[in-house]
């Protein structure tokens, strides 16, 4: 059949399997594709360490296939495009990640991800698998007001949790400690996104939302969910001046705090633009007396070729700084210190 969008795919029905086969073929040192469509580490971590698992809709690459590897996830269960995998597949993922010290099922807060993970845990209960915990993560300040944090969506800022939790789960941390660490990172993270131009759904070929040539959408979700509202397209500096204050106020981040900063490329932002944007972030944080410990700029959770970015901050203490600096070697996300 003719491709329905100007994308280089074979056919909508095989996007997931074609992608996973190509991905696994490209990175045999790092990942392996199982018969049941799981992405697992090429070298499983040592026994006696907590396994980290996540299931998610595909179409957001590198999330999450690119985040399986040393210092990151043990197993990813990729679902169809923008649809979380079902509970049976999550259960398989849990089993594959078990190294004898229990498994933490990580959930980026979206209805489908949560429901399927809940059902997978019910299946664990029925099968007598006990050392399994679930942690639900969220960071998007535009998706629910302060005071109702647990209703918020999981977006780009979860990258902080995956990176640092991944490092923590390489230590002798227990399952309960891992869960507490994930919550600690989550509770110190806040994110706000902006979209400039839409992406297209690779299955249906539909443009995911409409945006006039001179407008931006603040608070856009990772599937093109409408956010807080439209604003006029302004300069890079003015865009940061719109986005940073609500992020800072929400936690709040205060003078004297040390933070990690992440600019997530939603798809087709140029690095040029991201560096121009980061310049203003650095200026404003310095003015506010907030110190940047490390910066990460790049794609993590993309929305196909949507142009836009997320600004995410995580407040860190010495423990988190050490975890951030530990090596992480996923196929598409490699964090190593010089």
């Amino acid at each position, binding site marked *: 059949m003719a491709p329905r969008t100007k994308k280089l795919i074979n056919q909508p029905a095989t996007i997931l399997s074609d992608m996973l086969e190509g991905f696994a073929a490209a990175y045999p040192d790092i990942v392996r594709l199982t018969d049941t469509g799981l992405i697992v580490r090429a070298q499983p971590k040592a026994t006696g360490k907590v396994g980290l698992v996540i299931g998610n809709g595909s179409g957001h690459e590198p999330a999450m296939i690119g985040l399986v590897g040393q210092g990151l996830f043990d197993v990813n269960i990729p679902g*169809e495009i*923008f*649809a*979380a995998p079902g509970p049976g597949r999550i259960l398989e993922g849990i089993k594959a990640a078990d190294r004898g010290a229990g498994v933490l099922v990580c959930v980026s807060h979206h209805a489908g991800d949560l429901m399927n993970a809940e*059902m997978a845990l019910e299946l664990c209960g029925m099968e007598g698998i006990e050392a399994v915990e679930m942690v639900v993560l969220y960071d998007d300040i535009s998706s629910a007001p302060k005071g109702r944090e647990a209703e918020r969506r999981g977006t780009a800022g979860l990258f902080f949790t995956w990176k640092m939790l991944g490092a923590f789960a390489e230590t002798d941390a227990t399952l309960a400690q891992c869960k507490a660490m994930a919550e600690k990172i989550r509770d110190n993270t806040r994110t706000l996104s902006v979209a400039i131009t839409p992406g297209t759904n690779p299955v249906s070929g539909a443009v995911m939302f409409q945006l006039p040539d001179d407008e931006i959408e603040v608070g856009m979700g990772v599937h093109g969910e409408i956010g807080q509202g439209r604003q006029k397209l302004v300069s890079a500096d003015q865009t940061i001046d719109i986005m940073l204050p609500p992020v800072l106020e929400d936690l709040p981040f205060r003078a004297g705090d040390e933070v990690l900063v992440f600019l997530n490329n939603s798809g087709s932002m140029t690095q040029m633009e991201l560096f121009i944007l980061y310049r203003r972030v650095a200026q404003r944080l310095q003015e506010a007396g907030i110190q940047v410990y490390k910066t990460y700029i790049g794609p993590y959770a993309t929305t196909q070729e949507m142009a836009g970015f997320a600004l995410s901050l995580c407040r860190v203490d010495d423990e988190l700084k050490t975890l951030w600096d530990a090596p992480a070697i996923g196929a598409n996300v490699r964090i190593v210190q010089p």
Partner: protein
Amino acid sequence: MTITTQDLRGMITAISATISVNISMLNTLDSQLGDGDHGTTISAGFAAAAEQIAAADSPFDVLRLTGMTLMNRMGGSSGALFGTLFVQAAMSVKEAETVSLKQFAALWQAGGDGVMKRGKAAPGDKTMVDALSPAVTALHQAAEKGETVEQALQAAAAAAEQGAKNTAEMTARYGRAQYVGERAIGHVDAGAQSVALMFSAMYNYWKGK
């Protein structure tokens, strides 16, 4: 008159056939409020379920296998919810060899309760619940009045269809449709329409047998 295992298999097959000829209609509905994939997704789910149940030999088996297949094949929220619908329905006929109309009403009641518990949506929230809930009520009423299965299914199908239509007047609090706010008004919810198609397919199966 009771509903046999074979009838339940026939109904799932009929649902699969009906949904498969309505894929683009359901996708179009979903594209107004969501991401436009509902028809593709649910059709793939029921097609797989119809295959899986070929050897199922009890009402419990047919319903549970259907539910598990929908869950794992569809994924996402709708897989979880349509899957839960059938898995919970199965749980209420665990030991039964055949299903009376009263039991049939009760099993959809159990399934619907499972959906509401899993997804948190209540009637009026512009979801599949808005078609399911009136259909269950219609089945209960028919059972109480001592109507035939065919009459009951006809009433349930009509009630589900009306329930789906009514979603056009609602704004959504759950699912992707919640993000379109007031713009949702005027559009029928895709999941509700699927439920209406399910009951209509079951009625047609029964009428035609």
